């Protein structure tokens, strides 16, 4: 299943100059994506036969993202986003990746993380940059909704709340409520935000890079706790297997297209609430279509920072993010946590 996250079908089509064998491989993978009967076996065979297929995680950096000040510069944020997306999609032009992701008529949800207030929530300039690129790709402004669970939290984080026509929408699930019916997978039974179920067919996940006292780390997969009505029930046992199970809920799994992890400011200890003393100005973005690979790479980044600060590893603290392996296991297949199958691509912006 993680093949799906490597390259969109359109990209495969463009590269169809290969051999008959390559063509068949692409067909098999395509059939697997479409859920054709017996697809798992075909997919496994395709995975085994294709040593080159890796999940891409791009880390794009701009040391001058904030210029001489403390606030992220809007133009540099857009430039950083473009570098990240072009590296992820091997694209020459900033608009190209977005045309592979969305098309006119799509209704796109940007699931941000606004729990940390103004100091530590999904970066406003970055969210604006994403909205700009989506509109350039043909998505109407009012078909974009920036959301998290609570409107007041979004306001505290600095977002402008709006449900006006012809504008990007921005509000919390408290405005729409949750679906009445439970959806279940594995150990999880939850109601989903109506914003996800009714207002979008494409989900772009915009989490933060941070330490989490329960889960170990909180990035792409954990951010989906903001989609369900009962996240408090799924924090025991390091949130494992709950995080993986939540991400298997059909509306999440099928609508998720991309993760743009805001690592402009990150936290290596004391999370999830913002603790300035444990944060660092990282001036980076992480983007991937494989949320498991992104979480794995982000975890390693947090461990490196912890080592630099002479802190114990998360494993030594008995809070290693075990949910990442669960998300990659045979029951979930949400992506890969195998470093041999992850291509980490560094992209430098702002030069």
């Amino acid at each position, binding site marked *: 299943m993680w093949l799906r996250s490597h390259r969109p079908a359109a990209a495969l089509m463009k590269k169809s100059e290969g051999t008959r064998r390559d063509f068949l491989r692409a067909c098999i993978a395509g059939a697997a994506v479409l859920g054709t009967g017996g697809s798992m076996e075909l997919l496994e065979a395709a995975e085994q036969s294709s040593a080159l297929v890796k999940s891409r995680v791009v880390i794009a950096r701009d040391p001058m993202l904030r210029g001489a000040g403390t606030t992220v510069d809007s133009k540099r944020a857009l430039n950083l986003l473009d570098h990240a997306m072009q590296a992820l999609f091997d694209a020459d032009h900033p608009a190209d990746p977005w045309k592979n992701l969305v098309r006119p008529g799509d209704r796109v949800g940007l699931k941000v993380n606004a729990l940390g207030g103004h100091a530590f929530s999904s970066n406003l300039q970055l969210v604006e940059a994403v909205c700009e690129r989506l509109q350039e790709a043909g998505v109407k402004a009012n078909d974009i909704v920036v959301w998290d669970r609570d409107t007041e939290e979004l306001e505290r984080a600095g977002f402008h709340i709006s449900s006006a026509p012809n504008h990007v929408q921005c509000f919390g699930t408290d405005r729409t409520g949750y679906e009445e019916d439970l959806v279940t997978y594995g150990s999880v*039974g939850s109601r989903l935000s109506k914003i996800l179920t009714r207002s979008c067919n494409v989900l772009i996940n915009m989490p933060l890079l941070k330490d989490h006292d329960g889960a170990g780390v909180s990035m792409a997969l954990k951010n989906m706790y903001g989609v369900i009505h009962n996240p408090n*029930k799924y924090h*025991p046992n390091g949130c494992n297997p709950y995080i993986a199970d939540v991400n298997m809920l059909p509306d999440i799994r099928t609508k998720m297209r991309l993760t743009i992890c805001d690592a402009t400011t990150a936290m290596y200890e004391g999370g*999830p609430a913002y603790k300035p003393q444990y944060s660092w100005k990282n001036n980076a973005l992480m983007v991937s279509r494989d949320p498991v690979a992104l979480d794995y790479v982000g975890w390693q980044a947090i461990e490196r920072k912890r080592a630099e600060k002479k802190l114990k590893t998360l494993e030594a603290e008995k809070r290693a993010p075990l949910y990442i392996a669960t998300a990659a296991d045979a029951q979930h297949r949400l992506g890969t946590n195998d470093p041999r199958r992850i291509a980490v691509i560094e992209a430098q912006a702002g030069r």
Partner: protein
Amino acid sequence: MAREMISLADVKFPDVSPINEIARGAELGPRLLPLDRRSFLKCAVMAGAVCGISAFAEPCAALLPWAGGPTQGDSQFTAEARFYEKLQNKKIKCKLCPRECVVGDRERGYCGVRENRGGTYYTLVHSRVCAAHIDPIEKKPLFHYLPGTLAFSLATAGCNVNCKFCQNWDISQVRPEQIRADYAPPKTVAELAKQNRCPTIAYTYSEPVIFSEYLMDTADAGHEAGVRSVVVSNGYMQTESLKAAYGKMDAVKIDLKAFSESYYRDVVGGELKPVLDSLVTLRKLGKWTEIVYLVVPTLNDSDSEFRGLVRWIKTNLGVDVPVHFTQFHPQYLLKNLPLTPVPTLERAKAMADAEGLHYVYIGNVPGHPAQNTYCPKCRHLLVERVGLTTGQILIRKGSCPFCKQPIPGIWHA
């Protein structure tokens, strides 16, 4: 049975009992034991109650003066929690239940109704009533406590476990802001109970552990007004908080959900041992306690589990504790299992009887003779019940009128 969400402002007051005996009776027709004409008429009266045409189902808009009024703001429902300790970095450790959630700033505990705000822990559900109803006390079920009387029953959102069979998951498994609620301060509840001729306030439906502060304040207000309090709880609580909160109760019903740690871990999301400890503590406190054991097919219905349960009760609580083996109905996350067969309940009762327990009942099976209370000595019928209604109550001065055997319980207001 479909059930709409409860609000005090609702004109109709649907049934929210955890042991929804009446409603289920309709589903259980073929399983009912043969009824005589008198019993049939009683059942019909009860069915009427469910449909909202008897005193039991009196519309709450007429009962509750605040119903339909403006819902209060968050601050109205927020009070500092009483069972927690402060930690470093603005964290707290909750000391209400055995989970001992360590909660960071602006985070909530497992129950979802307690929040850390800057290092101080708050309950968000004080006086925040999302369900209220006037029920027969038999609906709790409490069979040895003021039979035939009414209980002013209420709940807030939230629960400290997540039972896969929860009947009230749409109020127990939500955060308070996700459900409509009304402001019902303790004194108002006590006054309303009295006005509606309810000698008892019952904290029930969701899980009263998580609204302990409200329960304690309301019990105090009730006692000042001459109204008693009972609680229907899972008993998953720390000993000190249990003593402080349930020490104010006049009777307690504990849902002992199984007699195995694995069931508590996999089906309930809790632990067995603290619940057993709570039962022992309640006995030491001298609180009148009854136990309900919901028998779930294939999960907690083995002979060995029944035997272990009843022997533990006999050894640790004595033979006079009423035990109700009740029928499971497919709900919430356990819709794949069937109703508990009545013979399974009868097997559990037979084992408990054989071990020498004096008061063993079968619940959720209207018309079953094991809903009645019999003298353990002379076997005479002492309290007759059909569903939730009480027929003859023959107990006199706490004893059997035929052989003078004392019958434990609280029989008179």
